[in-house]
């Protein structure tokens, strides 16, 4: 999986060998290890895993928003729309954010500035990145609000966030993230805080916008139901490692890594009467992470060789489907 040459223009986001370290009590630990993937235009890549497995850190690394004192990209390359973010200056990264790469967050209730009108908050990015005049940006803001299906958009331009429901606020967040027509959208658990019907609406909206705008979407979630409904490909992370990477159907039909299996077994399903199987234990903290395969402390298939770190090995017959496991890769 290391350093493939970067050529194809349809690849909006390329991440190569990304290693992100965070500082705990004065020591640096690799919280994301050697992660590589690409997201093409119109494609949705879902990044799944339980809390603390490195999903959000991966997203923050891509955005260049790691808190400097405690987090840094120590290795690897991140290319957004042809621009190498890791080599770019902070000013260049700032210009990229909100313009060519957008991000929406988990908490729509708190991610909007409570004292500024909605219309201004949507228009702000256009004025900032596109140098639009106030009037032009306001007009475009109305179009964007219509695009994300906010009813009577023109009348609500001067409304404040507290006058909107959670679902409506998430639509506003989407409008803000898409204002400058970015090529890449990172959605960090965009529907977790919403109830199920609103969740479905927001996901459908995202899917529509993705088609219209040709967006590459990196969807971060721990909801496998969401993955099944919108993702093209799935990447499972555990302890900062990508443990399995597969096309969506292949992942749900034949999960291969023991952690993927365990995740699916822990998901409630209507077509299965058996009890849910919880995964025993919890993700070890970074200082306690075992050497070699990081899942070994919870893995039922553990063998002696697990003390050595397995590579992400393509499974026979499907180059798109890789697994990081000695046992399952048939070594």
């Amino acid at each position: 999986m290391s350093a493939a040459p970067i050529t194809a223009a349809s690849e909006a986001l390329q991440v190569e060998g990304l290693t992100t370290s965070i500082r705990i009590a004065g020591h640096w630990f690799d919280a994301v290890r050697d992660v590589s993937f690409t997201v093409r235009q119109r494609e949705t890549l879902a990044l799944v895993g339980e809390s603390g497995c490195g999903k959000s850190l991966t997203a923050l690394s891509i955005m260049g928003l790691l808190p400097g004192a405690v987090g840094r990209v120590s290795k690897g390359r991140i290319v957004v729309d042809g621009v190498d973010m890791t080599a770019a200056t902070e000013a260049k990264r700032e210009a990229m954010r909100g313009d060519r790469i957008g991000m929406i967050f988990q908490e729509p209730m708190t991610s909007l500035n409570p004292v500024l009108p909605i219309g201004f908050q949507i228009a702000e990015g256009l004025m900032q990145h596109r140098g639009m005049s106030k009037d032009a940006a306001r007009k475009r803001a109305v179009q964007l609000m219509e695009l994300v299906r906010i009813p009577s958009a023109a009348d609500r331009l001067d409304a404040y966030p507290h006058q909107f429901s959670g679902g409506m606020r998430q639509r506003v967040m989407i409008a803000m993230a898409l204002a400058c027509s970015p090529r890449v959208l990172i959605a960090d658990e965009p529907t977790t805080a919403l109830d199920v019907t609103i969740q479905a609406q927001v996901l459908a909206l995202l899917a529509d916008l993705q088609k219209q705008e040709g967006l590459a979407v990196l969807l971060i979630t721990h909801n496998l139901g969401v993955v099944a409904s919108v993702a093209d490909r799935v990447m499972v992370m555990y302890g900062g490692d990508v443990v399995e990477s597969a096309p969506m159907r292949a992942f749900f039909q034949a999960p291969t890594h023991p952690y993927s299996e365990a995740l699916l077994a822990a998901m409630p399903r209507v077509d299965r009467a058996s009890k849910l199987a919880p995964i025993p234990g919890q993700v070890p903290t970074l200082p306690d992470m075992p050497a070699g395969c990081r899942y070994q402390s919870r893995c039922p298939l553990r063998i002696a060789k697990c003390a050595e770190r397995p590579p992400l090995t393509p499974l026979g017959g499907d180059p798109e489907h890789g697994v990081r496991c000695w046992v399952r890769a048939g070594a």
Partner: protein
Amino acid sequence: MSDAAAPAPAPAKVSLAAPSAWRRATRSGGLVVGLLLVIGMILVAAFAPQVAPYDPDAQDVLLNLVGPTADHWFGTDAFGRDVLSRVIWGARISLFVGFVATMAGVVFGTVVGVISGYYGGKVDKAITAATDVLLSFPQLIMGLMLVAVLGPNLQNLILAIAITAVPAFVRVARGSTLAMKERDFVDACRALGYGDLRIMFLHVLPNIMDEVVVMASLWLATAIRTEATLSFIGLGVPPPTATWGGIVREGFDNLLDGWWLSVFPSLAILLVMIALNLIGDGLRDATDPRAPQ
């Protein structure tokens, strides 16, 4: 089916909205009273030439130390000057010094505080240390020292009082910014590619203004009191210019011969203090979500 054609009754207009901030602020009436008093005083001060019955500096030796009468409501002083006129003219200086010094302190202190809280790290440590040093001096002593060093005139008086106000606003702004910085919308701003300046002054600042404004209204009272105190001990705007503290001081020399000399300017100071504190309390109640409803 018969009523299908009937127009649907218009829904009754019921407001489910929480009482507005203005309603909350004015419920106890303190804010309104305070505002009316302060606005009244500002108007009187602004139109002093029209309102004051006499020239504040005109002496009349034949009419010195006359108690309150129909001609001289607040009496006259040892030089025969009309005390009411002097209090009215004194309001100009006292209120002007108070407002300008507080404004300068608020603007500078808030900007520094936001920067300190937003950047953190070494910048924050240096600013916090400097603030602590300034705060370790009692505010009056600080003003005294500054005026003594700079020399007593209007400009230096304003400067000195502004400097004593700065650390308080650095603290308030820094604390609020620290809390605001952790809010998700600040991360969202960063994700939208906004620069630090834009985030600090367009996004964080409006969110902390409520606390700054409450603090400013209370500091206004302190600033006016400091000006009066400094004038009283002779470090204010030099005589014969009328200032409230100065009039109290002049009256002090003849206090046994004329109680009115010091009492009326003191009452003016008291009235402003009460009015500004009423405003401050009202604003705090309006902006504090934990305030009793």
